[in-house]
């Protein structure tokens, strides 16, 4: 294994070091912004939750650059798996075919499958560890940037859910295997990179859409003013009529239900006879705007499901790569 690791490092040294350097830079930025945001929270704690006054203006201004840095770290949870997977996965087979060294390498390894495993597993380990580090950094950044007032930590919150945690390395490994398969099929690095890039974006879009459709089967109705909504993942918006029916906005228009409630400054619902209550127009009734959302308590379960989907895609792509390498002409 160590021999294969050394070989992979020699063959892809620049790319591995460049991407690890990127992860190191992200780590430094995360550390600095997390510390700064933590200090601001200690200094201005009350300003970041609930109703705030004029004295909080400096608190928000001071927070802006560090929050922006934290958001860039979170965006790296989308970009870095793509870079790691595509740049490190595509050349594994494509380079051997393009440079016509496949014939020797595959013969000297006592079999193509043995060669493929020896080349892929160390890179897979590097990608999983690097992407795992990015997922962890994104968790730290999200925790520092979180200003929700519901008192939940991020293990029970959907905030920036697809940019942090276990999903990041799972996605990176899948994109690595997709790049590997595309590189094996195309046999030339640059065209394979382009095809892999487009395919990766398409797979990401398809998986995101599919997971969202799956999540829509696990929703509960949460009122727009309920604290639980801060940590939930909203799938759709509805209007709850006085009789309890959940209506789409156009259905609510047709049923003459206004998606608004009379609320006191303290957040309590006002009724007829309360100070500040304004009755609805004649023929209309008030309804409550609600979100069909997946609650925060189910976040971990859905992370595991989505990670399993990405792992499944990785397995399929790896099998595809194995099938291509087995049958491929080496040049």
């Amino acid at each position, binding site marked *: 294994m160590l021999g294969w690791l050394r070989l992979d490092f020699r063959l892809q040294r620049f*790319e591995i070091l*460049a991407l690890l350097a990127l992860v190191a830079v992200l780590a430094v930025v995360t550390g600095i912004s997390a510390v700064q945001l933590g200090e601001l929270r200690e200094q201005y704690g009350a300003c970041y939750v609930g109703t705030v006054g*004029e004295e909080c*203006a400096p608190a928000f201004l001071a927070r802006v650059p560090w929050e922006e840095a934290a958001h860039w770290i979170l965006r790296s949870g989308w970009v870095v798996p793509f870079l790691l997977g595509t*740049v490190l996965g595509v050349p594994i087979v494509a380079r051997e075919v*393009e440079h016509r060294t496949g014939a020797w390498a595959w013969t000297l390894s006592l079999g193509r499958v043995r060669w493929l495993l020896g080349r892929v597993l160390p890179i897979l380990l590097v990608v999983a560890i690097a992407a795992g580090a990015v997922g962890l950094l994104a968790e730290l950044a999200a925790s520092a940037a979180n200003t929700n007032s519901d008192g939940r930590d991020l293990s029970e919150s959907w905030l920036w859910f697809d940019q942090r945690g276990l999903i990041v390395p799972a996605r990176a490994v899948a994109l690595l295997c997709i790049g590997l398969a595309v590189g094996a099929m195309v046999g*030339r690095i*640059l*065209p394979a990179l382009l095809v892999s890039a487009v395919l990766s974006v398409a797979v990401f879009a398809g998986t995101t859409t599919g997971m969202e459709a799956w999540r829509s089967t696990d929703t509960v109705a949460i009122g727009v003013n309920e604290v639980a909504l801060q940590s939930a993942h909203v799938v759709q918006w509805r209007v709850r009529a006085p009789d309890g029916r959940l209506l789409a906005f156009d259905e609510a228009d047709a049923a003459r239900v206004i998606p608004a409630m009379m609320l006191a400054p303290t957040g309590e619902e006002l009724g007829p006879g309360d100070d500040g209550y304004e009755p609805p127009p004649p023929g209309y009734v008030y309804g409550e705007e609600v979100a069909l959302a997946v609650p925060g308590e189910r976040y971990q379960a859905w992370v595991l499901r989505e990670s399993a989907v990405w792992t499944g895609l990785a397995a399929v792509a790896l099998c595809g790569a194995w099938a291509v390498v087995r049958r491929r002409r080496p040049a």
Partner: protein
Amino acid sequence: MIQAWLRIAWRLQRSVVVFSAVACLGLSGVAAWLVADMRSIVAGCGTPSATAACDVIYAFQATHGPAVSMVQAGMGLAQYGVPLVLGVALITPEIEHRTAMISWPMARSRMRWLMWRLLPVAAIGLLLIGVLALAAEALAQAYLPHSDIGFTNHGLRGASMLTRALLVFVAAVAIGALLGRLLPALLVAGALSLGLASGLDAALPHWVESAELAPADDMQHGAFPLNTGFEYRAPDGGPISDAEAEAMLTAAYEEHGENPDPAVLPQEVFFGVAAWRYPEVLIRESAALVVATMVAGTLAVLTLQRRRPA
């Protein structure tokens, strides 16, 4: 002879050229369709079939906003991606595959070889990016039909897109010549492109001096300036802080109700570069980018002249 070099360029970079053409022409086609759709709606203004788009600045934000944003994002990626892959793939394969030892001597000089390899690819790339730039310009104009678009989407349309793409192409050639390996050159050139885009965005307010914008130069009056600052002024014209302005507004509304006399309200004053000065900024930025392109080109030539072929 020219045909022979064109054939060589096509054979050596066929897949990349095809990919670039599909990306640029595909995006341009979608943009053209959106432009035609938006213009047909504007053509109906002043007639019984006029829509709400005829009366608002952001005429198509609700109807076409997501589609236009996606196309513009794709154009932004293509504007850097296409010249990047075309440029990096020019010299690096020759060095990586050790064919430079044969091709460079056979061309009688390295400079001659570079020109014959680079010119066809550059012509194809410029043509594709040119089409993309025209489509992006038309899209930006059609999306804001009632305004001088000024600095909107600067860098993602027209001449500004073309000059950036040209610099990225030549820089990619230079980096490819320097590093001699495809993937490292792609990564370095990609990072440089990101840096270029960020640097040019940061430099935009500094090509000309910003000044107080006249009321006729602001967005409400149909122009998109480059805003660089904002301050409040008291009714007597003296500058005041945000907190003082807030207090003045609160007092005015409490005393005069919902429609206070504008003479007692603090004034909002914007600083920036007016939309009508956009051509001036564009010329200055383009000149700087052309100079940078020439420097990158010189670096590419010098590197190629001195480089070991493997």
